[in-house]
C-alpha cells in the first residue's frame, strides 16, 4: 500500500476516517466502480502476526456473505504489501458513540434496526461479538448499520483481546464473554441491551475498573433498574432492556427478533415497519411471528392486564415445572439476598427475577 492508494491503485485514498487499536479506516474512491468506499487496513503491529492476518481475511470473507440494509456491506478483502484490508460500504453520518444520551423515542427505532441486522447475521451463523456504540453507524437519514462483523471474531481467535483492546469495549461485554466462555447470538443481544441501556441513561450497566472487576460485578452485582437512572423511560422499555441484560444467556430474549418485538411492543412504536425490517428469520420462526398485528396486540394487552402475573409467568417459566416439557435445570438456585433494608430487598428480588428470567 502507498500513501494514496492500495490494491494496485484500485482504491484511491482520500482521507483517514478513523484509527483504532486494530486498524486504520480510510475513505477511498473505487477507481473501477466509481464509488466511495471505506477501506479498513489492519494495523502494522497486527499485520505482522501471520495467524491473525489469516483469521482477519477469513472472517472478513465470511462477513461478506451478509447482505442486509442494517449491516455494513463488505465488498472486497485482500492483502497489499503485507497488510490485509477490507473494502466496505461507506456510511456517512456518525456513530452512536458520538451521539451520547438520547431519549427513548430516539433510541428505540435505532435499536430495532440493530436487532434486524443482528438477526440477519445470526441466521447466517455469524455472531458479531463486539456490538458497541462505535460499531453502530447512523446515516443522516437515521438508517443504522452494524460495522465490523468478523473482526472481533478474528481477534478473539488469536487471543489478542484478552488484556488489550477488549478493555475499551468491555462495558458491553456479556458475562459469558467476560468469563471466556462460549458465545452465541445471545451474546450480541446482551451487548445491544447494554448499548441501549447506556444510550438511555448515559451510563453503562456496570461501572468497573478492570476485566476482573467487571466479571465480579456481573456475577454478584446488580444492574440499577433503568428507570431509577432515567425515570422518563417507559416501564415496558425498562423490562425489555433488562431482559436482554439477563446474566444467563438462556434467559435473554430468544433471538434478536424477539428483542425487537419486545422493544417495539413496549414502546408503542408502529411494529409493522420495524418488524418487517427485522423479519429475517428462517421459516421456523417463533409462533407469534405468524400472528396478525391485531392478534399480537391483543396478546400484549392481555399480558399487561395481568401485570406481575404475566411478568412472572413470562420470566420464570423455565424448566422443572409439572406442566413443562423441558428438562429440569440442574442449576443451583439461591434465594434473593435479603438486603439491609426493605428497598434493598425489593431490588435484590428484582435482580433475582431478572437473573432467572428467560
Amino acid at each position: 500500500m502507498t500513501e494514496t492508494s492500495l490494491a494496485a491503485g484500485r482504491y484511491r485514498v482520500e482521507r483517514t476516517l478513523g484509527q483504532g487499536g486494530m486498524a486504520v479506516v480510510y475513505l477511498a474512491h473505487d477507481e473501477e466502480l466509481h464509488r466511495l468506499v471505506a477501506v479498513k487496513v489492519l494495523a502494522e503491529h497486527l499485520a505482522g502476526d501471520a495467524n491473525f492476518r489469516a483469521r482477519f481475511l477469513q472472517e472478513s470473507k465470511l462477513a461478506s456473505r451478509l447482505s442486509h440494509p442494517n449491516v455494513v456491506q463488505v465488498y472486497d478483502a485482500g492483502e497489499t504489501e503485507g497488510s490485509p484490508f477490507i473494502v466496505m460500504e461507506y456510511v456517512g453520518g456518525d456513530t452512536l458513540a458520538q451521539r451520547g444520551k438520547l431519549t427513548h423515542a430516539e433510541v428505540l427505532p435505532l435499536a430495532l434496526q440493530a436487532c434486524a441486522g443482528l438477526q440477519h447475521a445470526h441466521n447466517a451463523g455469524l455472531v458479531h461479538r463486539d456490538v458497541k456504540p462505535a460499531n453502530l453507524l447512523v446515516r443522516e437519514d437515521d438508517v443504522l448499520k452494524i460495522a465490523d462483523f468478523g473482526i472481533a471474531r478474528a481477534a478473539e481467535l488469536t487471543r489478542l483481546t484478552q488484556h488489550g483492546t477488549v478493555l475499551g469495549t468491555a462495558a458491553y461485554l456479556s458475562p459469558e464473554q467476560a468469563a471466556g466462555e462460549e458465545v452465541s447470538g445471545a451474546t450480541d443481544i446482551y451487548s445491544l441491551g447494554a448499548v441501549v441501556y447506556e444510550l438511555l441513561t448515559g451510563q453503562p450497566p456496570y461501572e468497573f475498573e478492570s476485566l476482573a472487576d467487571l466479571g465480579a460485578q456481573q456475577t454478584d452485582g446488580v444492574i440499577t433498574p433503568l428507570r431509577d437512572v432515567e425515570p422518563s423511560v417507559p416501564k415496558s422499555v425498562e423490562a425489555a432492556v433488562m431482559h436482554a441484560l439477563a446474566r444467563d444467556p438462556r434467559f435473554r430474549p430468544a433471538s434478536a427478533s424477539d428483542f425487537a418485538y419486545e422493544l417495539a411492543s413496549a414502546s408503542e412504536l408502529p411494529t409493522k415497519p420495524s418488524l418487517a425490517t427485522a423479519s429475517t428469520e428462517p421459516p421456523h420462526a417463533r409462533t407469534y411471528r405468524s400472528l396478525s398485528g391485531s392478534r399480537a396486540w391483543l396478546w400484549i394487552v392481555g399480558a399487561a392486564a395481568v401485570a406481575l402475573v404475566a411478568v412472572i409467568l413470562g420470566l420464570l417459566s423455565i424448566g422443572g415445572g409439572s406442566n413443562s416439557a423441558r428438562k429440569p435445570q440442574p442449576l443451583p438456585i439461591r434465594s434473593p439476598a435479603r438486603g439491609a433494608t426493605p428497598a434493598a430487598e425489593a431490588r435484590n428480588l428484582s435482580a433475582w427475577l431478572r437473573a432467572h428470567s428467560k
Partner: protein
Amino acid sequence: MRSDEVARALTAGDPCGAGSLAQQLQRETIAAINAGRIPAAFQEQLGSTVADLVSRIQCVPVEKEHDRGKHKNKHKKDGEGD
C-alpha cells in the same frame, strides 16, 4: 416489574404505598404459584422473599401521627442500598 415499584416507593419515602404494592406483589405471586406456573424449584425462594418483604415494610398511618401531634414526617422513611 412490581418489585422495582416497591423499591421506588420506599426510596421516595412512601412506605404505605410500598406496602400496598408489596401486598399486591404477594397476591400475584401466590396466584401464579397456585396456577402452577412457577417452577417448583423457585416457589419457596420467591414466596418466602415476597412474604419477608411484605413483613418488613411498616406503614405508619397518618391519623396516628396526627394524634400524636406529629405533623411532619408522616411516613417513616426507608433506607436505600443493596
